[in-house]
């Protein structure tokens, strides 16, 4: 865990309400796929936890959806503005479990952390397949970027792009291990449907983001865990989703 004052270097709208932000001056950070950062947005009391989408040297990319006044303020920040950030939060995905043909499954703003994961798995020589789910064609983002690192299957609920339906309707066969991130109903559907081992990234409203407040506790089969600290990534076998 590190504290750093980063500089906003770019903000770009990817869709109507999904933004990509680049933060520079992150320094010597050891950021793993699936980890998150916690941002102090000017004028707001609590930080906002956001997953890491990509890291390039001294620059970090995040992607977020505007859902309230915090993310709205964040989306309105200008290049050059300072942003205090806590880095290296959360456990991240376990790349050593990937096998040779890892399957990445993301829904909506659950997709960004899988991008950095795809990049790292590709570097390790893995044959990556990504299933990316959206509501409709106008909400697509990063589908071309993912193609740099593997095969991409797009789904939309209304069928306006890719396969009609949910990610759980377009799962390929023959994969070695899965990594998922998305809305809870999607994750629970995958938990039931997939018959290979894998990991899910969870989210929760957080107070601190570094394990102090017990705001984001989650009861697993192995007892209570903090999503910010022992998570956000959990092995499927510890999740209490059998019913």
């Amino acid at each position, binding site marked *: *865990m590190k*504290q750093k004052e980063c500089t906003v270097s770019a903000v770009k709208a990817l869709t109507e309400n999904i933004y990509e932000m680049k933060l520079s001056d992150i320094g010597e950070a050891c950021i793993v796929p699936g980890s998150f950062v916690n941002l*102090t947005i000017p004028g*707001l*009391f*609590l*930080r906002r936890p956001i997953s890491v989408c990509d890291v390039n040297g001294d620059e970090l990319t995040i992607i977020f959806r505007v859902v309230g006044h*915090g993310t709205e303020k964040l989306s309105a920040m200008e290049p050059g503005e300072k942003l205090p950030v*806590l880095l290296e939060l959360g456990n991240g995905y376990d790349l050593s479990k990937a096998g040779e043909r890892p399957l990445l499954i993301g829904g909506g703003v659950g997709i960004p952390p899988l991008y950095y994961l795809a990049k790292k798995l590709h570097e390790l020589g893995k044959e990556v397949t990504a299933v990316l789910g959206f509501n409709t064609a106008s909400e697509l983002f990063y589908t071309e970027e993912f193609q740099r690192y593997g095969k991409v299957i797009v789904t939309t609920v209304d069928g306006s792009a890719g396969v009609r339906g949910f990610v759980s309707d377009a799962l390929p066969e023959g994969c070695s291990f899965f990594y998922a991130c998305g809305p809870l109903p999607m994750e629970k559907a995958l938990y039931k449907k997939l018959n290979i081992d894998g990991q899910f990234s969870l989210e*929760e*409203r*957080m*107070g*601190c983001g*570094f*394990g*102090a*407040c*017990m*705001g*984001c*506790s*989650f*009861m697993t089969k192995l007892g*209570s865990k903090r999503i910010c*600290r022992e998570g956000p990534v959990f092995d499927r076998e510890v999740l209490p989703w059998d019913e």
Partner: protein
Amino acid sequence: MGRMSTDLCGIRIDNPIIPASGTFGYGYEFAEWYDINLLGTFSFKGTTRQERFGNPTPRIAECASGMLNAVGLQNPGVDKVISEELPKLKQVFHKPVMANISGFSVDDYVYVSKLLDEQESVGWLEINISCPNVHGGGMSFGTTCEGAYEVIRAVKNECRKPVIAKLSPNVTDIVSIAEACEEAGADGISLINTLLGMRINLRTGKPLLANTTGGLSGPAVFPIAVRMVYQVSKAVHIPVIGMGGVSSAEDVIEMMMAGAAAVEVGAANLADPMACKKIIETLPSVMDRYGIENLSDIIGKA
């Protein structure tokens, strides 16, 4: 003795800065951010007789200049605190720590207090009769003079270490409850716990917190805390620990002028893990600015 040192119920502390219970875990998470030995002490996570998971999530909501929490006293239970948390803490913290204790009956409070009273690393027992996020315990003892008296008296009868009663602001007359605690033998009073609040999710039209209500803390509550510390410290003859929205060295000085012998810092730790370190480091220069030689000189100056 340094110019920031102060006496807290007979124990000298290097400075009056004390992270508040529930915002600092059992300390070692913060030891990853800075050397926590620079603190006066800290009050560890509210501990109960049995292990508790707490309330369902969401447990956290934000508001202007503050936050609501409805954690609901999640903790591993007193036995595990003694066998696992305190030994881990000992490796990173070498001063007496403040034990924070909650319960659902007088018997619970006494049981947990007695066990923690025996721990060498514990300096004070802070009796939380003010948690707003649990049912049938916590705050229900701290909202009447009789309930407060009964708990504090029972704990005092069984324990040797200084007993500090942590009070709720969700009462009509906090002074009378503080006086009841003093009469019961309390060695100190700490206040304020959080104020009961609520937020509603506009999309669903339902309460944002799964528990419906939660405790408000952060800078939003600071003036209320200053007022209550002022009123209580004028009425009792035992040390008062002031807390509620403290987030800067200036706030610490204001709280001490209101009558606090020491100051707890809560929500600020969650927004900034370095908050207490920054307060301690900036205190000397802020004292200089206001011509304060020793912090203990300004207690109750208002």
